[in-house]
């Protein structure tokens, strides 16, 4: 092979290797760093292993917000209309955090089933419902209906 060609072949091989390793790194860390969205029902059913970082969301239950007397800790419950999950957060809540409002929180479920949030997001537009929360509500709604229908069917037999 022409030496010039050979050199260029080495270069190309090196570049392919570099790209491949970049892709490998990307895929590996993607599997480590994605945060799945889980609905309150999934959490309440124990489908989420404790200690795994997830996103959870739903509507903040009316009257469920309780603050610490000393620090900034706050507990509240979120619902998808079917199940409720208690959430604890220590920090500044976003401006639009309000009872009845849809929120998304990043954090993990502890062994007692409490969702410990490291970040709470409420979007800045009141017209806007986080899409995940929307889907969770819809899902819970459909599940609820299906259960009711099943129950009604059973009752009628």
């Amino acid at each position, binding site marked *: 092979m022409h030496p010039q060609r050979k050199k260029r072949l080495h270069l190309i091989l090196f570049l392919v290797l570099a790209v491949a390793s970049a892709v490998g790194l990307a895929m590996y860390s993607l599997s480590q760093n994605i945060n799945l969205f889980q609905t309150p029902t999934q959490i309440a059913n124990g489908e989420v292993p404790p200690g795994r970082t997830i996103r959870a969301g739903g509507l903040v239950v009316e009257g469920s917000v309780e603050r610490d007397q000393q620090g900034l800790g706050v507990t509240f419950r979120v619902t998808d209309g079917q199940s409720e999950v208690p959430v604890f957060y220590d920090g500044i809540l976003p401006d639009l955090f309000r009872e009845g409002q849809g929120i998304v929180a990043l954090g993990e479920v502890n062994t007692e089933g409490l969702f410990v949030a490291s970040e709470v997001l409420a979007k800045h537009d009141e*017209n806007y419902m986080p899409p995940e929360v929307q889907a969770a*509500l819809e899902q819970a709604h459909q599940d609820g209906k299906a259960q009711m229908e099943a129950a009604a069917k059973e009752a009628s037999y």
Partner: protein
Amino acid sequence: MNRLLLFIPLVIFALMGLVFWVGLGIEDKTSLPSPLIGKPFPEFELGVVEDGRTLTTKDLQGQPALVNVWATWCPTCKAEHAFLNELAEQGIRIIGINYKDDVMKARDWLKAYGNPYAYNLSDPQGKLGLELGVYGAPETFLIDSEGIIRGKHIGDLNPVVWESLGKQFGEMQ
């Protein structure tokens, strides 16, 4: 260099486009029909914005109506309001659900922009909204004289939307 290699970017782009297209198609089919269509309107017992009397699900029955979910904090509702006024003038019965809102603000609004509604149910906590699977305002439901939900539209009502929705409504009457 082979000419065929130059087609690679185009092929990749076409594949990406295909994935998007198929994905959007699936989404359309699953999300658009509301699970509530064909079901009775959910049970409620709520106060009326205008005069404070309490109404229940039974009061919806009797004649077909549009049930419009709105709020004073919702800019699209403001944009839609003029068209609702028009519909009311045509004699179409519209029932409002004042969603997650303040009754006093709602009254001011109706005074300022006109009241196309037969009456407005006040749903300050959004409980009825949750039952109805409301994601945001405005949303409009079509109910028949038995109080069964026959149709749903997310977003503002306007002449374009009304073309199909109005046809459906006309058939119910």
